[in-house]
């Protein structure tokens, strides 16, 4: 699956998917939930919390 396809599926821009993948941007709880639902996995499987 391409970034563009995923972006279209969850209605965000491709740049947002790219930034999420490269760790430049942290998703909101809502977007994290949307992504987890899309991939049918738990949020913790997609994202991990890193203390700054």
């Amino acid at each position, binding site marked *: 699956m391409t970034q563009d396809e995923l972006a279209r599926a969850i*209605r*965000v*821009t491709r*740049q*947002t998917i790219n*930034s999420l993948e490269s760790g430049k*941007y942290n*998703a909101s709880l*809502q*977007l994290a939930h949307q992504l987890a639902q899309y991939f049918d996995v738990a949020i913790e499987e997609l994202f991990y919390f890193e203390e700054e």
Partner: protein
Amino acid sequence: MEVQKKWKIRLWAAGGYILLGVVFCLVGGITGNNTEILDSFGSGFIVYGVARIAQYLRLSRNPEQMEAVEIAERDERNQMLWDKARSYAFSIYAPATGVAVLVLYLLHKETAGMILAGSLCGLVLLYVIVYIVLKRKY
């Protein structure tokens, strides 16, 4: 907000900007004072309004592009970027204006300095009011 409703508001706002621009140009023409400044502001408002209407006309003929614009506007990263840009712009504008006011006073351009200082005070006051309103809301 529905897309059509949002665009309806935007088109009214665009009409308002065009009207404001015409008023600026007319005032400049009638009074003959500071014509360049008033014409510049007026033209800016008119161009912005016309550009908004042109954007709507272009997008309304291309639903796919309209949807792409809609997605980009709702995108949370874009919204974060716009908020950050506004925040940084405000943070830079405040001290830069302070320095500019000081320079204007040193150059004995008190009136211009006072107007600039007033604009900064107005902006800070607006910030405080909006902050209080938002604090009550959230």
